[in-house]
C-alpha cells in the first residue's frame, strides 16, 4: 500500500464513529454460509466470490455475488479484480483451499504488493512449502516430489535404507499426497512397493515424505500484521475423525514451544494477515516436526469448536485479521486470553462402518451423557454409502462439551468405534 493511500484510509477510519459500516467491501472468496453470517454480524459490507452454482441462491437472498470457477486456470483474474474493485472491494478472504491463490492474487492487486500472490502460492504447492520450511530451518521429514511411479519406488527404498532396514524387515511407510489438495484429500501411506502400482497418472505429480512419529495436532493462528493475535491448539484424537479444543493439559503445557515454532513459521512464510492452519507432530521430548500449513478455514468443525470453547466467532476473527485496516484496539477487544476457555469442545465425525445403511441407532447413554451437546445424523434415504474422499463427506457429526479433557478423549475414542449406522 502506498503511503498516501494509507493516510487516506486512516482518515477514513478516524472519521467513522465506531459501529458504523466501513465503506469498502470485503470479498469472501469461496462459498461459506458461516463466513457470510460472520461478515454480516461484523457489519462489514461484503461480496461473495463463489462457484456459479450458488448464483440463484445468492440472488434469492440479496447477497452480492460474483460467480467464479476456481479450479479453472485462466487469465481472467484481472477481470475478477476489476469487477471487485468496481464494486468497492479491498480485502479478499480465502475460505477454501482452492481459493487461497485467488485471494492472494486479489490482495496483491488491492494492496499493490505482487509478492502477496507468490506467498499464497507457497501455501498451495506442498513441495514448495516443505522446501521453504526446510530453508528456514524448520524441522521437516525427508521429502521429494515424484513425477512417476519409479520416483516413488526409489524414494520408498532409499528412506528405508536410511532407516537401516534389511531384507525381510517391514518397511516404514512413506506418505504421498497431491501437491495442491486440502488436508487429507488424496493422501496415502505406502509401506509396500506393490502398493505403488495402485497409483495412476492422475495422482502425479505428488509429494512424498518420510513418516513422522509423534502426536499430531493443529493450530489455528489468527495473524494480523505478522503478529499472533490468538493461537488456538487443536488436539487430534484420531486424524479426520475426532478432535477437541483446547488441548489436554499435557499438550497445553507445550504452548510456549509451539508459539515459538509458529512465530518461526510466520517469519519464514512472511505471513501478514489472516488465519493459518499448520499441522505438527510433537515428540515426547517436545521436539516439533512440521507437517504442512494452510491459510483457510480448517476442516473438522474446528472453527465451531473454537467458538464453543472460547466464545468468539472464528469466522469473524478470520475476517478481522485478514483486513490490514483492522485496528489494534478492535483486535484486543475481540480476542479473549488463550487460557480462558470455558471448557473442552470436541467433535466426532461419524462415518459408517458398513457399505449399505439399514438404519441409524443413537444409544441413549450417548444422548444422556452430560458432555453430549448435539448431533446432526438422520437415516439417509438412500442406503448406499458414498466412497470417502479425504476426510470429507462424513455422515454426521456429534458435538461434545465438558470440563474434563480425559473424559472427552475417552468419549471420542469410544464412539469412534461405535456402529451408529447398521
Amino acid at each position, binding site marked *: 500500500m502506498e503511503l498516501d493511500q494509507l493516510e487516506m484510509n486512516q482518515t477514513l477510519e478516524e472519521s467513522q464513529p465506531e459501529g458504523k459500516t466501513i465503506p469498502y467491501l470485503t470479498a469472501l472468496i469461496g462459498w461459506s454460509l458461516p463466513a457470510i*453470517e460472520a461478515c454480516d454480524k461484523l457489519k462489514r459490507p461484503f461480496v461473495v466470490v463463489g462457484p456459479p452454482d450458488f448464483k440463484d*441462491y445468492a440472488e434469492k437472498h440479496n447477497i452480492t455475488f460474483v460467480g467464479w470457477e476456481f479450479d479453472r486456470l485462466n487469465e481472467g483474474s484481472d477481470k475478477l479484480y476489476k469487477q471487485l474493485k468496481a464494486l468497492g472491494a479491498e480485502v479478499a478472504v480465502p475460505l477454501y483451499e482452492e481459493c487461497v491463490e485467488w485471494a492472494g492474487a486479489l490482495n496483491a492487486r488491492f494492496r499493490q504488493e505482487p509478492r502477496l500472490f507468490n506467498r499464497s502460492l507457497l501455501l498451495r504447492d506442498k513441495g514448495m512449502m516443505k522446501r521453504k520450511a526446510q530453508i528456514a530451518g524448520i524441522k521437516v521429514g525427508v521429502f521429494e516430489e515424484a513425477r512417476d511411479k519409479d520416483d516413488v519406488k526409489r524414494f520408498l527404498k532409499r528412506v528405508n535404507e536410511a532407516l537401516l532396514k534389511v531384507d525381510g524387515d517391514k518397511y516404514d511407510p512413506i506418505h504421498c499426497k497431491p501437491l495442491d489438495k486440502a488436508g487429507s484429500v488424496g493422501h496415502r501411506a505406502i509401506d509396500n512397493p506393490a502398493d505403488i502400482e495402485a497409483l495412476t497418472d492422475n495422482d502425479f505429480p505428488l509429494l512424498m515424505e518420510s513418516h513422522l512419529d509423534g502426536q499430531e495436532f493443529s493450530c489455528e493462528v489468527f495473524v494480523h500484521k505478522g503478529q499472533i493475535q490468538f493461537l488456538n491448539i487443536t488436539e487430534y484424537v484420531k486424524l479426520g475423525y475426532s478432535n477437541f479444543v483446547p488441548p489436554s493439559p499435557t499438550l497445553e503445557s507445550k504452548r510456549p514451544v509451539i508459539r515459538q515454532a509458529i512465530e518461526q513459521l510466520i517469519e519464514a512464510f512472511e505471513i501478514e494477515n489472516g488465519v493459518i492452519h499448520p499441522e505438527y507432530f510433537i515428540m515426547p521430548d517436545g521436539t516439533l516436526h512440521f507437517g504442512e500449513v494452510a491459510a483457510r478455514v480448517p476442516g473438522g468443525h474446528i472453527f465451531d469448536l473454537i467458538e464453543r470453547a472460547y466464545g468468539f466467532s472464528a469466522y469473524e476473527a478470520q475476517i478481522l485479521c485478514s483486513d490490514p485496516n483492522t485496528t489494534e484496539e478492535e483486535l484486543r477487544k475481540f480476542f479473549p486470553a488463550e487460557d480462558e476457555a470455558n471448557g473442552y469442545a470436541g467433535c466426532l465425525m461419524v462415518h459408517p462402518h458398513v457399505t449399505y445403511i439399514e438404519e441409524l441407532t443413537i444409544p441413549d447413554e450417548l444422548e444422556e451423557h452430560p458432555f453430549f451437546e448435539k448431533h446432526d445424523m*438422520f*437415516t439417509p*434415504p438412500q442406503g448406499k454409502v458414498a466412497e470417502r474422499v479425504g476426510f470429507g463427506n462424513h455422515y454426521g457429526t456429534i458435538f461434545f462439551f465438558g470440563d474434563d479433557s480425559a473424559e472427552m478423549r475417552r468419549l471420542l475414542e469410544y464412539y469412534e468405534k461405535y456402529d451408529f449406522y447398521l
Partner: protein
Amino acid sequence: MPSEVTEGKIARFSQSLTKLSEAPTYAKSRYQTDVYQEANRLLETEEGLEILFKYADRFDEAGVFQDGPWEDPSKLQPPLVAGSLQAKGLPYVIEMLSNLRMLAIAEGMEEHPTVSKEMAMDFLNEVMALNLDLLFPQATEASRIEKKENADEAQRLFQFISRYLSSSALSETLIHEIKRLTAQRPIMVKRTVSIIKMAKEMLKSNENDTQKEVLQQYVASIEGPSNLSHLYSQPNEYRKQLMNLSVEELQRESEILGRSMRNTGLCSPHHSVLARLLSRKSPELLPALLQLSGKGKANFEEHEELVHQLIKVALFPTTCQSVYGLALLLERGVLSASPVIPGLRRLIELDIRPEVRNALFKANEGEGLTANSILLAGVISVLGQPLGVGQGLNPTCQAARGISLWAQHAPGYLLEIIPRAARDGEIDMVFEGVNIYSKDLQGGLAPELHPELDPVSIVLVPHLDRIYSEMMTRVALRGEDGHRWVNPAFYGNWVQKGFSTVIEPITGNIADYPGFVRLFYATHHPEYNDEYELIYPNPVGIFITNVHGKMLGFHAVSIQRIAKCPKGNYRVYFYNPNNDGSQNWGQGIVSTVMGNGEYFGESSLPFDEFTSRLYAFHYNPYEQGDSYAVEQDSVAKVKTLAKESWGKEYKWISG
C-alpha cells in the same frame, strides 16, 4: 417404544426454533438441522405432536421449510404425504412438521399469504382420505407383514389431525373419492373396495345421516345390498337361503341386487350366487338381476343358451365383478357380432399354456377356479366395459388402449388374439408387409409386468407391448414420428392415415405450433370441421404434466368423442388407460370423470385445454374443415398454455 417427553427436550426444541428464526434468511440451512433433530426427539414421544403443534404457527416465519421442497404449502400435494412419512430420516421429520403447519393454518393460528384456512382444511381432509389405512389400522396378516416404516408415528399424526377435522368433512371427501372412482367403472375395483372398507370405519363416528346413508349404500354394494345377502354373507349360506325363496321373493332380491350393481358398478359375491341360481332355476328373472334395458333383454333372449353357459363357466363369488360385465355386454349387443359367439365358446375349452395359467392364478390367488373360468370372466368384463381397461402400474398405455379399442369395435379380432396368446404363447401382426411374431421379440417397455391387471391384459399385454416396441424400433430412423405408421398397423385400419405432430422429429424443436393447433381444430372441432363425427376412437399422444405444469413425459390416450357438455361448451371426451382418469395437469387443467357429461369410463377436458397438452394425432385428410376460421384468440390461448408448461422443455422456432 415411545420415549419420555421432558422439559429439557421441549426447551431445546424451543431454543433451536428461536435460533432459526433469528438467523438471516440466507443462513437458515445452518440452523434447520438442529430444529429437525430436536423435533425428532419430541416426535418419539406420545405428547410430542401436541407440544410441536403449539409452535406450528411459527414454523413458516422461522424458516423451518425454507429453500426446501416443503417451503410453499400451496404447492404441496396430498398424495405425496404418505410417501414422505414412510421415507427414512429427514423427509419424515419435515413432513410431520409440514402437516402440523397445515393444521395451524386450517385452525386459523397462522395466516398464510397463499393458503387459506379452507384450502388447508381441504388439504388435510384429502390427506386423511388417502391414508385411511393409517387412520384406522387393520389388524390383518398383510398389514403385519408389510409393516411400513414409521407406521406408528404416522398413525399418531393422523389421529392427532383427525381430532381437529370434522368427521362429516372427512366423510364428504371419502364419498367424493368413492364416487370419483366408481364413475370410471373400472374392471379392477381393488382400490375402490379397499376405500369403501375403510369408510365403513367412519360410519361408527359419523353423525350426519345423509352421509351415513350414502356410505352405507356403498358398503352394501360390496357386502350384500339386500337384507338377505346382508344377513348371510357367506356364499354357501346365502345360496341355501335363496333355495327357500318364492318366485316373488327371488324377483325382489334380483331387483335389489341389480339396482345396486348398476348404480355403483360394484358387485358382491352374492351377485354371482344369485346369477347361477337364476340361470338354473328361474332364467326369466336374469334380466331383473342384470337390470337390462329393452335392447339388452332382446340380446339376452336371442342368445340365452350361451348366456347360461357363460354364467356357468365364468361367474363365481370371486369373479363377481363380471356379473356387471355381463349386463353391459348384453346392453352393448356384442353377441350380435358374428365372430363373438364362437370366439367365446372357444375360450371355454381352450388349452391354456402352463405359464399363462400360472400368471392368471397368480393374479387371482386361492380361488379354486380353472384358468379358463378366470380368463372368460375377464373377457366378459372387457367386452362389457371397454373403457374400464387399465394399465395398472405398468408403462403399457399403448397395449391397454389397443385392448379397449378392439373391445369397442373389433371384438372378433380381440377374441382371435386372446387364444393365440393363451394357447400358442404368441401374437403376430403384419407391419408393412413383414410378419412380426411376439415370440421372437425381447424386452418391450414392461419386461416385468406388474400383475395387478385384469385377466385379458395379463394374457395380452406382454405380447402387445413387445410388438409395439418392435414396430417403433423399425421406424426409428425415418426422421418422422413413428406413430404415423405404427398406430394404423398396430390398432388396425380404424386409425386414420393423416398424422400431425408438434415436435420436429430430427431437431426436436417446436415449429409452427399455431398450424398444428389449427389443424386439430379443423379436423376435430365440430364448429370448424364441417361436422364430421369421430367414428372410431382416435389414438393421440399427449404431454403429461404435473400439477405445476412441469412436463413428466408422454402418454397415450384415445379421443372417444367431441361434444357439448351440459353447460354447452365443447369438451373432448377421452379414454385414459391410467386406472384413475381424474388428474391435475397444472395451469388449472383438471381432467374430470364425472359431472361434465362423461359416460362411464371417460375422462374429459374443455377442447382448448385438451389441445394444449396434445403432441400428435391422426386425422382423415379427406375430412378437413376450415383451419383459417379458427379464432386467433383460441390459438393464442392454447399456445400460451403449451409454452408455459411442457413447452419449457423445448426450443420454439417460429410461430
